[in-house]
C-alpha cells in the first residue's frame, strides 16, 4: 500500500464512519452511554481535514498523526485506545513511503497488545478486542494482503455477531451485566467497519 492509497483509505474510512455514526451510536445507547458513533465521527472528521497535509509525510508519520488526533479529539476510551494503536502501527511502519503487508500485520499485532494493556481487556469480554484478535489471526495466516485482509473481514464480521452472545465484563457495557446479552458491541463494530473499508480499497 503506497502513501496515496493510504490517504485515500483514510478519507474513505472517514466517510463511512460518518455514514454509520447513528448506527454506532444506537448500538452504544443500548448497552453503553450512546456516544461511540459521535466520538468516532468527530475523530475521523479531524483526520479528514488533515489529509492534504499528509502528502508531505511518511506513511509512519501519517499513522502517528492519526493516532494523535484520536487521542486528542476523540478522547473517552475509544480515543486513546484506537489512537495508541495507530501510533504503534506508525512506529512499526517507520519513515517509509509505503506500508508493506508484513509491517502492517506486525504493527496491528503490537497495536492490539497496546490496547489490551491500556484497557486491561482480553478476548471474550465484549470489547473491540473480540473483533481484532480473530482478524489478526487471519492476517497472520496469509502471505498477501488481498487474502489476509479479506479473511480478516470475514472473521471480524463473525466475531462482531458473536459479541451479541457475550456478557460484557469490561468497558461501560459491563455495568448492565446480563442485560448486555443480545446486543452487539459498538467498539467491535466500529473496528469491523474500518477493516471492511480497508479490504474494499485494496
Amino acid at each position: 500500500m503506497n502513501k496515496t492509497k493510504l490517504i485515500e483509505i483514510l478519507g474513505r474510512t472517514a466517510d463511512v464512519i460518518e455514514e454509520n455514526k447513528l448506527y454506532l451510536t444506537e448500538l452504544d445507547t443500548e448497552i453503553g452511554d450512546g456516544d461511540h458513533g459521535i466520538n468516532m465521527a468527530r475523530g475521523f472528521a479531524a483526520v479528514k481535514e488533515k489529509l492534504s497535509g499528509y502528502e508531505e509525510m511518511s506513511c509512519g508519520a501519517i499513522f502517528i498523526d492519526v493516532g494523535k488526533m484520536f487521542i486528542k479529539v476523540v478522547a473517552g476510551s475509544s480515543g486513546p485506545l484506537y489512537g495508541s494503536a495507530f501510533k504503534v502501527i506508525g512506529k512499526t511502519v517507520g519513515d517509509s513511503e509505503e506500508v508493506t503487508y508484513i509491517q502492517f500485520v506486525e504493527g496491528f499485532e503490537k497495536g492490539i497488545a497496546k490496547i489490551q494493556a491500556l484497557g486491561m481487556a482480553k478476548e471474550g469480554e465484549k470489547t473491540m478486542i473480540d473483533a481484532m484478535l480473530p482478524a489478526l489471526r487471519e492476517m497472520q495466516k496469509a502471505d498477501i494482503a488481498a487474502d489476509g485482509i479479506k479473511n480478516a473481514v470475514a472473521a471480524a464480521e463473525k466475531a462482531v455477531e458473536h459479541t451479541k452472545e457475550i456478557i460484557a465484563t469490561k468497558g461501560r457495557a459491563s455495568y448492565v451485566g446480563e442485560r448486555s446479552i443480545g446486543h452487539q458491541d459498538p467498539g467491535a463494530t466500529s473496528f469491523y467497519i474500518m477493516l471492511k473499508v480497508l479490504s474494499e480499497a485494496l
Partner: protein
Amino acid sequence: MKKIINDVTRVEEEMISGLIKANPDKLERIENELIVVRRDRKKDKVAIVSGGGSGHEPAHAGYVGYGMLDAAVAGAVYTSPSVDVISEGIRAVENGKGTLLIVKNYTGDVINFNMAAEEVEDEDDIKTMKVVVGDDVAVENSTWTAGRRGVAGTIFVHKIAGAMAENGAELEEVAAVAQKVIDNVRTMGMAINPCIVPAAGIPGFTLGDDEMEIGIGIHGEPGVRREKLRSADDIVDELLEKILSDIDYTGSEVAVMVNGCGGTPLMELYIAFGRVADVLKEKNIKIYRSFVGNFMTSIEMEGFSITLLRLDEQLKTLLDAPADTPAFKN
C-alpha cells in the same frame, strides 16, 4: 429533543464560559480548553485535579475553589477529557508540591488520566498520585467487571482531600485521606426518566409510565434492573439495603448525601431524605451531616442516589473545614 441551548456542538464550551462569567473573581479558564482553575492558587500546596465528561454539573468545575479542587478538566458530554487536556490542567496548577488526581472509575477516564500522569512526569517532571473512586454498589466489584463506577461519593473525596491539601499536607497524606474516603463511601441510585445527550438527540433508555431503573450510573446508561415503580419509601429502603449490605454502618457516624440526577424536584429529594433519616435512626447509624441537592447529575435525568460516608474524627474535621466553591460552601 427539547433543550435550552444555542448550538448542540457548543454545549460544553458555552456551559464553561457561563460558569466563569458567573464566578469571575474566583475562577478562570485555560484559554480554548474546557479547563477551569481557581484564581487564588496557593504556593506550597498540593494541587488537586479532577474531571471527566461533561453533563454532571455542578461536577466537576463547580467544585473548583478554596478548600476543594485547583483545577477541573472536562470532556464532551459523558466522554473523558483527552490526555492533552488533562496534562494541560495539571501543568496549570502544579506548584512544586505534587498533584493528586481524583478519577472516577471509568475505562476512558482511567486510561486518559494515566497517560496524562505519565506525560507530565516525563515532560515536566511533575509528581502525581492518583486515586480512583468506585462508590457505586450497583456494580459488583470483581475481576469480572470494569469495577465499580465512581458516582456522587466523589464529591466527598473532593471536599476532604481538598481540605487536607489546604492544611498544607504532603501529597502522600492527601492521597491517603482521599483513599480513606473512598474506602468508606458507598452510593446507590435509581431513575424514573432518562436523559438525552445533546449530540445524540435520543434518550439512553426508555421507561414506561409505571417503570423505574434500579442501579443506574451517571451517564444515562440503563441500570442493572428494571422494575415497576414503587413508593419513595420502598425505593429508599431498597437502595439503602444494598448499601448497608456492602458496608455495615451500624453504630457509625455518617455523612449522608441524597443527590438529585438533574431533573428531580427538591421536593422529591426531601421526601426521600426523610425516609433515609428514619431508616438510619432505626439501624443506629448517626447522621453527622446531611446534603440534599444536585451534586453529581446526569443532565436532566429524573432520579436520585443515596451516598453514605463513614466518618471518624479526622474526616469530620476535614468535612467541616472551610470551602468556597460555586457549588459547595462551608
